[in-house]
């Protein structure tokens, strides 16, 4: 999980787009995921996102996030597939469970929708320094800096916490806790006590970071304080046009 949801410096087109453009594109893709009911089109968009990520040198983290989303989608997929009873029965299972063709198609669609709606948003984090995201939100979207900072700090803490959690788990393994158990309830019972050290360390960390920000004039910050400007450039316009095209296509194309 090293480097998970962490900024990766680079010079690709994705890195150079304005943070607002990236935010808008993710929202557009998210909208496509729900507007289109074409499995083929959504799969195409997912592949497009993965391809663009690979071209921008963040292919590895894109795959990391993708595989995590895949696991989540699988749960959603399994939850859906047995509930739809319309259509032709494909497989009959014990306990009066069966899978229909419509159920299968719908479950796949839901799973793909989840992936497409979350992947681009998560990828912004790997191609945008959080301070740029905060800065652009303050300048362009007129969001007060306090909130932008809180949001970006929360995002920045994700990898820090994921490292912390894996280190806590390692420390517990070292004293003999066996996390390999297949029994989910037993596993939860083993993991629950670990919330205590995690809580203690996160309270300490947030307290320090607040102090550190305050010591460097956080309270004085206003909208004019930003040094960088996040002007829209030609490439932002092209990217947004592409986004509009994609969303228009999602309405027009009605492939299965």
């Amino acid at each position, binding site marked *: 999980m090293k480097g998970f949801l962490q900024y990766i410096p680079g010079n690709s087109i994705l890195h150079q787009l304005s943070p607002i453009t990236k935010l808008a594109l993710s929202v557009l893709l998210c909208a496509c995921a729900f507007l289109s009911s074409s499995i083929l089109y959504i799969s195409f968009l997912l592949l497009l996102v993965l391809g663009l990520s690979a071209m921008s040198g963040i292919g590895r983290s894109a795959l990391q996030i993708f595989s995590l989303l895949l696991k989540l989608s699988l749960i959603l997929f399994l939850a859906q597939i047995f509930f739809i009873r319309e259509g032709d029965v494909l497989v009959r299972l014990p306990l009066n469970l069966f899978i229909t063709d419509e159920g299968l198609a719908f479950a796949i669609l839901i799973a793909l929708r989840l992936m497409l709606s979350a992947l681009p948003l998560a990828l912004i984090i790997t191609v945008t320094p959080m301070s740029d995201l905060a800065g652009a939100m303050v300048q362009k979207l007129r969001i007060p800096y306090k909130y932008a900072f809180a949001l970006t700090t929360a995002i920045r803490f994700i990898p820090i916490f994921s490292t*912390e959690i894996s*280190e*806590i788990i*390692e*420390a*517990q*393994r*070292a*004293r*003999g*806790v*066996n996390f*390999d158990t297949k029994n989910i309830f037993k596993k939860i019972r083993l993991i629950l*006590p*670990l919330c*205590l*050290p995690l809580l*203690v*360390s996160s309270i300490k960390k947030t307290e320090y970071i607040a102090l550190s920000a305050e010591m460097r004039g956080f309270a004085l910050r206003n909208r004019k304080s930003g040094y960088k400007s996040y002007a829209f450039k030609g490439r932002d316009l092209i990217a947004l046009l592409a986004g509009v095209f994609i969303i228009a296509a999602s309405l027009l194309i009605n492939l299965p």
Partner: protein
Amino acid sequence: MIIFDNVSFSYGKTQIIEKISFRVAPGEFVAIVGPNGAGKTTVSKLARGLLRPTSGTVTIDALNTRTTKASKIARTTGFLFQNPDRQICQNTVRDEIAFNLKIQGKSDDETTSRVEELISLFGFDPNASPFRLSRGERQRLALASALSAKPKILILDEPTTGLDYRECMKIMNLIKSENLAGTTVFMICHDMEIVSDFAERILVIADGRLIADGNPDTIFFNKEICAKAALLPPQIAELSQRLGGAYQGIRHVDNLFGAIRKNFKGEATL
């Protein structure tokens, strides 16, 4: 007791440990030294079976770490991290020490008596909340729980970092007395004064390789190795080396002081 046989370890494409071999005999006190990022922590985790070698074999207490569950190794090996806060997860000092024994399925009677024994040895308040203790106390608590199952081997990753001198000595003296009682100690340490005071043998690691293995004298008095691993030899060792002659090779303050004093006629009046 701990055997590394041609062990390599890589994380992704990065090679962290390259072909390391050594053996630690029962009852030894071995220190692992070397600069940050040399791979010392990886060696300690490999020894404990928290990581498995990419190639080669690690054996601890006759168990091959590749085929043994990490939880089984816990029965004979205690492990102490640099930061005790990732380990402490119980609400009282008593429960924290008992935790290791409980997860190993020890009987209640056995657990209670061992916990009481450790509480009096360490001088803890058994009902105190671990999170309210000082950093040094929390480190001692982590050591107590690492010792609870009476391990044959103790692996320590920088046990004294962030502690003041007094806390440092408390921890080290406890570790030393365990060692004298027969426990094998395998310890990563940056402080050469501590290494010189407590360890019998030193493994020097630099750039993922084992570049020297020997007793403190042969390591500290070898300029080439010290330079290679950015080691700062303990002051007295360095001073005695610089003075040369009869003083050469002395490592301890009292010994050097004695040697200097002995050379003077005025000794009778001292």
